[in-house]
């Protein structure tokens, strides 16, 4: 981009810093100090594994009963219910709303930002 124009107090402060040999100008950005219209491509954080507690309960029951399914029928049923619920949850979740962690995927954010870009000049 072209050399950005800063307000007067910024230039005066920066030259003051050099004159007092205090420290080199802390402000030397080559680009305008304005937000870009896109975010970086971040790898989508993976969701955690579901139904781990039910699975561990079922496995404890198996260990006690020598991997026999008949005495563990209750635990197995709860595990199946949990799995069915998690599956339905996954099917119903809509990517346009916030995910379970409260984050939008970067592609969706970029689309929104493109619709409402940063205003760099006033006309």
């Amino acid at each position, binding site marked *: 981009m072209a050399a950005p124009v800063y307000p007067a107090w910024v230039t005066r402060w920066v030259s003051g810093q050099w004159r007092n040999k205090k420290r080199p100008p802390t402000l030397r950005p080559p680009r305008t100090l304005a937000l870009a219209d896109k975010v970086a491509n971040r790898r989508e954080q993976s969701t955690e594994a579901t139904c781990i507690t039910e*699975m561990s309960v079922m496995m404890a029951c198996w260990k006690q009963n020598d991997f026999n*399914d008949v005495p563990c029928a209750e635990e197995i049923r709860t595990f199946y219910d949990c799995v069915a619920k998690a599956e339905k949850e996954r099917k119903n979740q809509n990517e346009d709303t916030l995910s379970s962690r409260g984050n939008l995927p970067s592609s969706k954010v970029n689309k929104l930002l493109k619709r409402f870009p940063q205003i760099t000049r006033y006309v």
Partner: protein
Amino acid sequence: PCHDTARALGYSPAALAPCRIMPVRWSRYNPSYLEPEVKKESHQKPLEELTEEEREQMELKAVRPIKAAPPSLSSSVFSDPMISKFTNMMMKSGNKVLARSLMSQTLEAIKRKQLEKYHKAPENEKETIECNPYVIFHQALKNCQPIIGLSNITRGGKTYQVPVPLTDNRKRFLAMKWLITECRENKHRQTLMPEKLSQELLQAFNNEGPVIKRKNVLHKMAEANRAYAHFRWW
């Protein structure tokens, strides 16, 4: 020929012009086509007994085209979708006649063995012996189905066996596959398939035998690897 097929599958004339029929693995029907309803009971229900969804379904059937029923779909009382699936898995090189005869011979063998046991048993035990081969087949399949499976997940270069819940279809497939491979590979060469299968099914019905052992081995491995369960992301 390509235009006729496309028109039969429900594509409009505008879409027909640049058509080429490529063989594909998935269905080539237009999404508007509905599945055929084969069960006689659903057609014999009087109009008042239908619920709201069923009324809507009937309205839809009046305006939408319906797919052709595949030859394996039958409205007979003797047809069982699980038995058909098992027969298809037993089939080799498309020899459905042989697979179906083997299946019927298996069911007959099961019935014979159970009847023999029934007639030899004392009076008080006669009720406990199950003679219906279909019941035995279904119960044996249910006993063979694994509850949890293992899947390979790679993290940091190493592949781990992670315990993972299975879908119903996958469980049924695994149970049937294990039964068939067990019969084909680990038995004496000269015994016929119905004999081997009936023996395996009866053993699975009583929760014993090599297939149940294989299922338990899978469960034990899943239990041993339960620490890696967090590697799953679904």
